């Protein structure tokens, strides 16, 4: 069975998380990282533009960082209350098929939302996860030599008004929603923990992986400890 180490990284600025993912992916490609990794984190408010972005899809970029990144897709927003997952997977161990990977990521989130009592579905032609006609999770991925980075963003308690600044994913008129909004009676304090647990359950189920629990402690330090000790890494 494939193993995946989950890293609960807390709040990480976008640029830092991006650099981290690139390093992990390079390590995975080179074989320095012996297993897959799933980074779970939140970003401070940021707007990111995928390779397919059109500037007119950013409506009011005022006061928020805007990043142009190498993932697929159009523009999206990340911010507090949004569970961001960056799987660093070597698809050689699964399927060398990016469409399979996109659909399977969607399925993992659909399963997770099912655990939370939210009926979710795909919207053919529009990658992401939808519930009752609204979009609840966005997906955009990148792959090099069949190792993935970037991933998904699930709105848990996200302040949805931030999405008014953009045309999410380039789809005019799309309405965003969140786990908090869809569960209604859920308690905000426990929702984050429940969502994380549900996502891990969904991931294990559809990818057939087993999650290696992450030791407690300041998550950022895991960044170095993930690697095999043979590789010295300056600056960490």
């Amino acid at each position, binding site marked *: 069975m494939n193993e995946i180490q989950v890293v609960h990284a807390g709040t990480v600025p976008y640029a830092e998380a991006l650099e981290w993912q690139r390093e992990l992916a390079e390590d995975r490609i080179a074989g320095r990282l012996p297993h897959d990794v799933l980074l779970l984190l939140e970003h401070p408010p940021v707007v990111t533009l*995928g*390779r*397919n972005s059109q500037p007119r899809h950013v409506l009011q970029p005022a006061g928020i960082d805007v990043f142009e990144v*190498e*993932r*697929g*897709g159009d523009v999206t927003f990340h911010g507090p209350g949004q569970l961001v997952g960056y799987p660093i997977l070597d698809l050689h161990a699964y399927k060398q*098929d*990016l*469409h*399979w*990977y*996109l659909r399977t990521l969607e399925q993992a989130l659909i399963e997770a939302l099912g655990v939370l009592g939210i009926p979710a579905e795909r*919207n*053919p*032609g*529009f*990658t*992401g996860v939808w519930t009752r*006609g609204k979009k609840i999770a966005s*997906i*955009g*991925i*990148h*792959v*090099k*030599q069949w190792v993935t980075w970037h991933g998904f963003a699930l709105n848990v308690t996200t302040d949805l008004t931030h999405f008014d600044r953009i045309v999410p*994913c380039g*789809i*005019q*008129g*799309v309405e965003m929603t969140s786990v908090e909004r869809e569960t209604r009676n859920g308690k905000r304090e426990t929702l984050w923990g429940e969502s994380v647990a549900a996502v891990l359950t969904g991931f294990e189920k559809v990818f057939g992986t087993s999650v290696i629990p992450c030791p407690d402690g300041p998550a950022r330090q895991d960044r170095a400890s993930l690697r095999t000790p043979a590789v010295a890494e300056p600056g960490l």
Partner: protein
Amino acid sequence: MATKVHMEALSPTMEEGRLVKWNKHEGDAVKSGDTLAEVETDKAVMELVARADGQLLKVMVPEGTTVPVGNVVAWIGKPGEKVDGDGAAAPAPKSAPAPEPQKRAPPAVRSAPETPPQPAPIAPTDATRVKASPLARRMAKEAGVDLKLVQGSGPGGRVVKRDVESAPATEVQRTAPGALRTPLEGAPRTPYEDVPLTQIRKTIAKRLAASIGPIPHFFLTTEIDMERAAEAREALNKQLGEEGGKISFNDIVIKAVALALVQHRACNAWFQEDHIRYWNEVHIGMAVAIEDGLITPVIRNADLKSLREIGAESRELAARARSRRLKPEEYTGATFSVSNLGMFDIDQFTAVINPPEAGIVAIGSIAAKAVPEGDRVVVRRRMRATMSCDHRVIDGATGAAYMKTLKQMLENPLAMVL
């Protein structure tokens, strides 16, 4: 020997990929494993990686190009090494595991030629080879308008007075002898821009070409007096008042089109190669313009629905069509369609049939016109409707009878409640 770089498949079913970005440029040194370019499909980006060391000698496709899987996108080799410009010869060395050229599509790469033709200087006005009326010719000369740049609307494309008058300023260049055309303000300085077909545009192209080609279309136009429909609409909307959900002319047209079909089942039909399916239910497809295309959401059983229901449903469907959130069953299964360009001030037009349906009605704008009534002339609100008919299903008289009923319904909206 130089090594080819091929477009790779991001998934087994993928036949082409869009090269979105070159990370290396001609002349850059590359080593095996370096990222050369990024290829995108759906929401996934894949890096195209070098499988040889050397220099990136030649880039075959510009950014933004869609390339069939297996096609050559670049060459890697020793500096100064010659590569085959069209990527046809020079077999890849065995050491470079090129991806299998599976499902190889035609080698053509959809892109602009690498050296766009220079815009040709426009010669001093030479109107002798343009067909134009003498008046148009004189007006053009006085205004300094190049007749060759004016679209003629007269017989045989002849340029007439109204063409010269109405030629939009951006298309009409004042020509001084030997002067070059200046690019439009704000326009990019390339002579043209190639935009790859989006999925919806490909579908539109395929479906509509499959329609106007094999389907023998014929067209029937009638002018309809909309005074009473307008009065009825005003009265109904007054009654609805602040409840919201106003009734539009389009709702009235859809209802009338549906009710007229109940009386003319011969027009409510699908052509099905070896048979014609005459429908007993009336489902009206409503053409909705969306960004980069159109889609026809369907109002099911429109003959049985009230104007208010049709209004609410058509607004809701149109909104979701624009946000591309229609489910397939919501835009398929129409038995007949309506296309309305009245809001764009189009007097009349012909719509292309959406197969397998046998007909579509094209609705023009409602405009006040002077019409004879007895021995005087009165001003009435009029609207032109044009039916496109599939002659394999509908004959001239059949279509005409339908249009007569439609006209009667709209001219006397009370007939709709009969």
